């Protein structure tokens, strides 16, 4: 309920301005007689008891005086008249003083009088502000203008101030009007203002009025010498009593329930209430004009088309009734007294102000007749017998609810919008994330495609390659020497493949190292071959982890067989010759090679260890150079050798072919070639089948 709050604040302000007067020293509150009781202003500062005594004394003294006067002048009639008059004024003063508000102001007057002049200069921040404004606005017109302006202001204020207590407010108002005219003439005729444009002259006049009135506001507005404040209270009470009057009673077409109209009405009411907070008369007038324009707008909204005075005045009355502005009468009187007459007589401001005066006077004289209702009904309303369900009040409450609802709805809408936007943002964010993910995977795959991850074998430094090539040559030579053995080995393997189960082929893997080692021992190319063979054996073994545990056992058995085969290298050849389907390899040489069996045990035990560990023990420091060579070689070697180890892999076939070439190179013994070829082909086919 903004209006009520406003009203309250205005009321508060009204009292707040008088606040300083309430600050009375403790000593002042005590009885003047010093009896220790509290005194009272009504009793001339005495306590009740002392006052009574004092009054008695006074009365006696007066009685004596009048007696003496009568004796002196003999003209009793006149003195009596005078006495009567004085009594009357006393009474009036007392009456005024008895009103709480007036007592306060009178206190102000008493205490504030000595320093009033100081107030004018110092304690008026508004005037200071205006002075600054003046300098900023009209400073360009020169020092002379400024000096003259303030000289006039000074003479005006001092004159008014000095006359304030001697003359009734109406005379002072007249003086003010005279001063306005004087300044007007001065501005328009004297040399000082010659350079000033006519427009600015008018502004100066306005400013003069404003400045002077703001400076003197506290003495000219609702002066204590008048009963303006009393009138304020009366009209306020009157309006309060007429709160039941609604638009219908006034024959005005304000639709109280429409939200838009209500808002406009609020605006009008606020403007009207704002009048009290303004100080300069023209500012107050502008408030009235704004209020009236809002009223016109309300009417245009309600009925459409041009608004005539027939409709305007009732609407304004309605607004005044609903606004119940603070110090309404004081404000109106202040404006009529101290506003430049020309402004009031003419122009829009004058018109609207006249309307406001009409509205107030209508309210003051409001009767049953003026509301077109029977006298009884009117009285019933006034006495509160009938409490009308005021559309305005209910609309006020309902509208307030509606208003809040609307506000809340708007708030909710805003919130939901925000959540929606947040949701959308999250959606886009997730999409972005997904996109990014896809992009990254795409890029990664693209990169991978472009540059596939190939774990290349360890590289050999360049210089080693040369050595390697020489070594290769050496190998070739050496291979020649060990050719027969190689062939045997291969043949042996192939036989195993053909004859044994898969498990047996695995077993053969273990055989190979054994063989190789034996071979190594036997041949001179130990360094080259042995690691290669070992690696192959490892490669072959590691895939079948299941067997790794059982390897030791298996190896054990196989070792014997292999060793037997190994031992019988020389003997093998005849075996091979005998038949490809010769199975009983393992058993035949069991007993013969007990010493040798232990040798292969060492590698079999080493097997579970990691490659490097495994490889290194066999690589001697000086062999390291060659090791890399071997690795290179390995490709070939691996391709050659794994064929028996991994019969299932497709690679095998390719390598096997190549592998064949290597051993085939040194094939000198022509007898074996045919058998080898046939065996290899058979082996190939079998591996492919697998």
């Amino acid at each position, binding site marked *: 309920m903004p209006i009520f709050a406003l009203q309250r604040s205005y009321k508060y302000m009204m009292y707040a301005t008088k606040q300083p007067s309430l600050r009375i020293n403790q000593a002042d509150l005590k009885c003047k007689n010093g009896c220790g009781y509290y005194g009272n202003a009504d009793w001339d500062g005495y306590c009740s008891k002392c006052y009574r005594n004092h009054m008695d004394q006074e009365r006696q003294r007066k009685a004596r005086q009048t007696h003496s006067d009568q004796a002196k002048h003999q003209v009793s009639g006149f003195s009596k008249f005078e006495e009567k008059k004085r009594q009357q004024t006393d009474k009036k003063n007392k009456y005024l003083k008895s009103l709480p508000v007036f007592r306060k102001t009178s206190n102000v007057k008493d205490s504030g009088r000595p320093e009033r002049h100081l107030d004018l200069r110092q304690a008026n921040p508004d005037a200071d502000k205006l002075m600054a404004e003046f300098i900023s606005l009209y400073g360009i017109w020169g020092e002379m203008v400024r000096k003259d302006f303030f000289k006039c202001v000074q003479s005006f204020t001092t004159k008014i101030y000095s006359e304030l207590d001697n003359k009734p407010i109406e005379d002072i108002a007249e003086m003010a009007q005279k001063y306005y005219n004087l300044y007007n003439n001065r501005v328009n005729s004297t040399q000082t203002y010659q350079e000033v444009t006519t427009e600015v002259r*008018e502004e100066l006049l306005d400013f003069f009025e404003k400045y002077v009135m703001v400076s003197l506001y506290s003495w000219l507005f609702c002066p204590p010498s008048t009963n303006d404040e009393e009138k304020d209270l009366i009209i306020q009470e009157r309006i309060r009593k007429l709160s039941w009057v609604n638009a219908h009673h006034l024959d005005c077409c304000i639709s109280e329930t429409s939200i838009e109209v209500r808002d406009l009405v609020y605006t009008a009411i606020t403007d009207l209430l704002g009048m009290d907070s303004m100080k300069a008369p*023209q500012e107050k007038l502008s408030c009235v004009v704004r209020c009236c324009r809002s009223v*016109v707008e309300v009417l245009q909204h309600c009925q459409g088309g*041009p608004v005539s005075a027939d409709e305007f005045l009732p609407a304004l009355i309605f607004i005044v009734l609903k606004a119940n502005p603070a110090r309404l009468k004081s404000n109106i009187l202040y404006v009529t007294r101290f506003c430049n007459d020309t402004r009031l007589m003419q122009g829009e401001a004058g018109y609207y102000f006249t309307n406001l*005066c009409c509205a107030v006077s209508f309210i003051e004289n409001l009767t049953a007749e003026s509301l*077109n209702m029977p006298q009884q009904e009117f009285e019933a309303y006034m006495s509160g017998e009938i409490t009308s369900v005021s559309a305005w009040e209910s609309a006020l409450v309902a509208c307030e609810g509606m208003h809040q609802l609307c506000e809340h709805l708007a708030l909710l809408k805003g919130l939901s919008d925000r959540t929606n936007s947040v949701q959308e943002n999250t959606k886009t964010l997730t999409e972005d994330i997904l996109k990014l993910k896809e992009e990254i995977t795409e890029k990664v795959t693209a990169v991978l495609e472009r540059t596939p991850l190939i774990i290349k074998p360890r590289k050999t430094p360049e210089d080693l390659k040369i050595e390697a090539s020489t070594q290769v040559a050496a190998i070739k030579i050496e291979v020649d020497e060990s050719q027969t053995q190689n062939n045997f080995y291969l043949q042996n393997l192939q036989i195993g493949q053909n004859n044994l189960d898969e498990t047996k082929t695995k077993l053969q893997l273990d055989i190979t190292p054994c063989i190789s080692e034996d071979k190594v021992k036997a041949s001179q190319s130990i360094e080259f071959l042995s690691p290669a063979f070992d690696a192959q054996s490892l490669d072959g073994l590691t895939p079948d982890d299941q067997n790794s545990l059982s390897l030791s056992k298996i190896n054990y058995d196989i070792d014997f067989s292999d060793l037997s085969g190994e031992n019988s290298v020389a003997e093998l050849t005849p075996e091979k010759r005998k038949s490809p389907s010769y199975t009983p390899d393992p058993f035949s040489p069991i007993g013969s090679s007990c010493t040798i069996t232990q040798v292969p045990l060492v590698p079999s035990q080493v097997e579970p260890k990691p490659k490097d560990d495994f490889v290194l023990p066999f690589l001697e420091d000086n062999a390291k150079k060659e090791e890399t060579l071997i690795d290179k070689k390995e490709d070939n070697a691996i391709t050659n050798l794994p064929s028996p180890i991994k019969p299932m892999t497709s690679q095998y076939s390719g390598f096997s072919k190549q592998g064949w070439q290597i051993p085939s190179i040194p094939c000198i013994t022509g007898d074996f070639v045919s058998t080898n070829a046939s065996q290899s082909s058979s082996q190939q086919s079998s591996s492919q089948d697998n």
Partner: protein
Amino acid sequence: MKTIVGKVVVLGHQGVGKTSTVIRYVENSFSQHITPTVGASFFSCKLLVEDITVKLQIWDTAGQERFKAMAPMFYRNANAALIVFDITSTVSFESMQGWVVELTRNVESPMVLCVVGNKIDLAKNREVSRDDAIQYARSIGATYHECSAMHDQGVGLVFDDIARGLVRMSGSHNDHNLKVYDTENIDNIMANSSELEATDTGKEETVNLSISSIAHGNTVKPKCC
């Protein structure tokens, strides 16, 4: 150049078309750009009578009977009164006479009075005869016009007449309270007097008729009738 500022108060019974008449006139004068405050009940317009600029400030008043008591506030300091009645309503004519009585009683300074019979477009329903109206106007020293705000007949003449009356008054009487300015830059003063956002966007309107053609109590016939 002389400038006269005159306050014209429009009186009459409720619903006789006071506002319509005024608005019709204001709209006609400034048909190109209607002031935003049209729709309000205060108007300001400027006419040019011979060499004299006449600025009319037209104050509309509420015609209801219950506001009659407030009327003096409006016609205080008025220089001219436009008294409107409805020719189709005897009540409005009688009521108007009441207004005039009030007016003459409350205003001491001389005023230009102008009686206007409105709604001549409804002449077939006429209740107040033209002769009665003219006779009455003569009796109070007023001019009489008939017009139709609705059909825009004779409205301009009413205000021309008032402007002329003001000019004549400014010349003859000494006790009038007309504001007469002799300054060149009267506009500025006027801009000040109606200080809050000028409501007068008035254009000057030249009147071709000569003053001599209008005299008190003479009927000036509307062009179309």
